[in-house]
């Protein structure tokens, strides 16, 4: 199973009683706000979930693997996600594994 935008819309409808058309618009706005912030190089921190950071990558020398030709890979800007400690514990089934790790 994969969680998609549709599932989020349904969840807002079922859990918060928000009509589906409104819920769709809300989800789009929320995602667009996050994307806009990242686009303007601002990090977005969702406490308890994780942090979306914008990282600058310098240009570097690389090679075309199929031709062996040398080339320069341009500088680029990428989004990285750092998961929060809370989320990390949740996906590892907090409680049981916690003790084993120590």
């Amino acid at each position, binding site marked *: 199973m994969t969680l998609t935008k549709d599932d989020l819309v349904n969840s807002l409808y079922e*859990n918060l009683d928000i009509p589906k058309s409104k819920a769709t618009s809300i*989800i789009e706005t929320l*995602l667009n*706000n*996050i994307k806009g912030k990242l686009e303007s190089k601002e990090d977005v921190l969702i406490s308890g979930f994780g942090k979306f950071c914008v990282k600058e990558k310098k240009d570097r020398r690389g090679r075309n693997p199929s031709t062996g030709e040398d080339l320069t890979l341009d500088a680029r800007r*990428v989004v990285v996600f750092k998961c929060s400690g809370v989320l990390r514990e949740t996906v590892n089934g907090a409680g049981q594994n916690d003790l084993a790790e120590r």
Partner: protein
Amino acid sequence: MNKSQLIEALAKEEDLALKKAEEVVNTVFGDMEKALANGERVEIRGFGSFKIKNYEGYQGRNPKTGEIINVAPKKLPFFKVGKELKERVDIS
């Protein structure tokens, strides 16, 4: 930007009460968290996808003391940025 600023912006733009916007944001990320906790994938078109990666345990060393320690196997959420977001963020 943090979660409360995200909530404020959403409330304003979608004409929602602050409390409602807070519930929305918590529901959205809570649902994603639940899916990941169940080992499910999350796929948000234009934004990105999350999946759980399994890492095997290994023998490591405490860099400070040199002591050998066993690192237990673990799961970590992995985010792959979506096409639209990737293009918007990159230097054009």
